[in-house]
């Protein structure tokens, strides 16, 4: 009897224990498995704080590693309007009461606003919504302003931080660098074109915070890792870039030019050392500039080059052997061809010109007659090999290929005018590249603006470059440089393009500009293309100025001469050796 009772008790207890265990396990499963997601969400909503981990955008540096663009943290100052009331502040002399007006005055002193503006912001927000808890006081203030406002300890002022782009050199290479939007989206220039290199990817993470606001150690969970952008190294030399921009701006503004550009390129490598645009553009202050001035016209705006084109024509005819520097051509002031094409020369000159004379006097009638010795197909091939009608290897955003029609589409007039740079368009970069081919023994190197892209681990990626293109023979190239050097020594240029100890080859251009109604306006684009030192060309400098007050190349030559001197000093270009080959202008 006793044993049985004991057994029953034991069994009953066992059953109860099992039942309780089952109950607990059921509840456990309910919490841990069935409702896990909901509970997790509820808990993380209360405890965990999500945050964005910014993938920093990479720096852009010049060829010497000088910083051109970098990432900076900027701060938005925000206010909780409904809490914007007076508060007390402990100072050395005791507690003082600070009214919103006093606080606004303190903030305004840092943000350079008017205190009334800040009060208006608060009042406007409260007028819209009496419970308003958020309004911007100032956006994008720098770290110094942030520290200053933060130290004021105003309880109703809050901050948001945003990584933003800073360009320490301002407008130096600004037209090339482009800019990014306020949300970090690249919008123009190299920032856009090289996004694959410099772009960072934002990540996210969350952490838990105790009741006292202190982060609980070890609670950080990375949801998505951030990836920093790489460093983009350009071929640009920032000092020369600044000099080129300064010199161009000085001339362009004194001449009231509409726009202008200067390109400095290494002849042997095709590396762009400076690409100056006027009007220039400071990417720190985008809104201050007209949209059309925010890019690089040197890459994106093709124009009819005018007489600088004659060097390409001369190089082609010398290369095929149909002409030599001393080939004779009767070059009248005015010419009318059998196909109806007709045009005149710029100024009076003797008619008995050699090819050298045609180049020295920049005779349209002479060069078109000599150029016509070439078949159209052949002419087209030369122009294409010089890089016309196709974008360069740089692949700059919005880069233009210019306009080079196929030879069978040339009209009667442009069949001849193309010899002297009317009836086709090209960019300054294309023209500089064509001159580099002449300077580099007939071999046109690919144009480059980006030297390399280096990631955080130090892996260096250099952009793939196409092979150099053989345009003309080495001998023809040498002869063409000699012709260009004789232009300088024979004419008025010699007084302006003159660096003692250095031989310089150059060709001027004064191109008519389309007036937009199928004709030409009375304003011109004046250009100057220079190869130096002429005995072994190292650099090509090409400057163009649109609609200057004086339609003469004299407007730009002295600044180009200064730029040449600066390049010689900065890059340590060796003085010339030997004497120029002399070709006569007349027969």
């Amino acid at each position: 009897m006793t044993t049985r009772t004991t057994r029953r008790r034991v069994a009953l207890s066992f059953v109860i224990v099992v039942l309780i265990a089952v109950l607990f396990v059921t509840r456990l499963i309910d919490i841990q498995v069935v409702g896990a997601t909901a509970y997790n969400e509820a808990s993380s909503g209360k405890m965990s704080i999500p945050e964005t981990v910014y993938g920093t955008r990479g720096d852009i540096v010049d060829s010497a590693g000088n910083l051109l663009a970098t990432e900076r943290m900027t701060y938005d100052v925000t206010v909780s309007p409904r809490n914007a009331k007076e508060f007390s502040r402990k100072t050395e002399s005791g507690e003082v009461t600070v009214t919103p007006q006093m606080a606004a005055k303190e903030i305004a002193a840092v943000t350079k606003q008017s205190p009334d503006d800040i009060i208006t912001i608060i009042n406007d927000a409260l007028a819209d919504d009496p419970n308003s808890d958020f309004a911007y006081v100032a956006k994008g203030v720098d770290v110094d302003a942030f520290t200053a406002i933060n130290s004021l300890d105003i309880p109703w002022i809050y901050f948001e931080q945003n990584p933003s782009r800073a360009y320490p050199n301002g407008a130096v290479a600004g037209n090339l660098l482009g800019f990014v939007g306020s949300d970090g989206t690249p919008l123009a220039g190299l920032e856009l074109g090289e996004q694959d290199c410099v772009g960072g990817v934002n990540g996210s993470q969350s952490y838990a915070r105790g009741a006292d606001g202190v982060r609980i150690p070890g609670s950080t969970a990375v949801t998505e890792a951030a990836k920093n952008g790489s460093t983009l190294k350009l071929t640009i030399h920032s000092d020369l870039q600044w000099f080129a921009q300064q010199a161009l701006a000085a001339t362009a503004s004194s001449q009231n030019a509409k726009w202008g550009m200067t390109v400095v390129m290494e002849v042997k490598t095709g590396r762009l050392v400076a690409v100056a645009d006027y009007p220039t553009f400071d990417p720190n202050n985008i809104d201050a500039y007209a949209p059309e001035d925010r890019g690089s016209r040197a890459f994106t705006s093709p124009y009819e080059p005018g007489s600088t084109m004659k060097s390409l024509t001369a190089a082609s005819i010398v290369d095929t052997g149909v002409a030599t520097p001393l080939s004779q051509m009767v070059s009248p002031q005015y010419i009318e061809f059998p196909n109806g094409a007709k045009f005149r020369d710029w100024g009076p000159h003797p008619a008995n010109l050699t090819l050298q004379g045609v180049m020295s006097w920049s005779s349209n009638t002479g060069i078109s007659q000599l150029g016509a010795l070439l078949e159209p197909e052949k002419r087209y091939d030369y122009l294409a090999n010089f890089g016309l009608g196709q974008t360069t290897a740089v692949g700059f955003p919005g880069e233009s290929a210019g306009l080079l029609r196929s030879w069978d589409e040339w009209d009667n007039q442009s069949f001849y005018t193309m010899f002297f740079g009317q009836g086709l368009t090209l960019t300054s970069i294309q023209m500089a590249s064509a001159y580099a081919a002449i300077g580099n023994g007939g071999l046109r190197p690919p144009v480059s603006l980006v030297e390399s892209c280096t990631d955080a681990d130090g892996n260096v990626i250099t952009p793939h470059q196409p092979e150099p293109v053989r345009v003309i023979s080495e001998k023809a190239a040498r002869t063409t440089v000699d012709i260009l050097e004789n232009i300088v020594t024979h004419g008025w240029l010699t007084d302006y393009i003159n660096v003692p100890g250095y031989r310089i080859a150059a060709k001027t251009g004064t191109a008519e500009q389309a007036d937009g109604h199928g004709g030409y306006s009375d304003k011109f684009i004046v250009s100057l293309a220079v190869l130096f030192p002429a005995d072994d060309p190292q650099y090509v400098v090409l400057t163009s100025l649109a609609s200057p007050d004086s339609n003469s190349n004299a407007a730009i030559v002295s600044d180009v001469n200064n730029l040449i001197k600066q390049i010689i000093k900065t890059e340590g270009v060796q003085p010339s050796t030997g004497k120029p080959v002399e070709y006569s202008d007349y027969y």
Partner: protein
Amino acid sequence: MARPMSDRRFAPRPESLAPVRQLHAVTRNPGRKRRPKVFFATVTVVTIFLISVAQILLSISTQSGAYEIAGLQQQVKDLGRTYQSVTQDLDRMTSPQNIAHFAQALGMVGNSNPVYLRLSDSLVTGSASAAVAGRNLVGSSNLVPNSMLTDVMAEREAAARAVSDARARQAQTVVAGSTAANVASDRAPAPASATVAVPSPQGIPSPTTH
């Protein structure tokens, strides 16, 4: 032989016949039996106590560690901001516009003519000519804007103005003072040169030559 063996096997055991107590207290060494109980109890209690203390200490140290980490992280943040602030200044100070401005403010003039001296035969190439003030290569005003320098330039101009104002004031006081006191001395008034910030000659290093 086999039988008596099986009999013995099935024979009732003598113990089961008498009501003998199956369990009985072990009476040997009663003193030693009590002592382990106290010992183990003590060990358990002490262990629990120690664990609790250790846990409290650990918790306190973790907690204070969290505050320390938070404090250090704040310090890292502040230092990061200071770093950003000074690099920002450094970067814009090294911009070509700023350097050109400084150089010109110091009265430096760029010589436009490149001249080389060849060491092998002492040949000078180029035409050596002195740099002429006012004939800078690219004019005196900066035409390549940099909005990052706006504040710096404004401050510098204000400072320059302040210095020139101070000089002017100084000169006036000196003139006024000397006339008032009617000092008939052929010595130049000392205070003017003493207060104007002129770099001390001792600050310029110069070699001692013999």
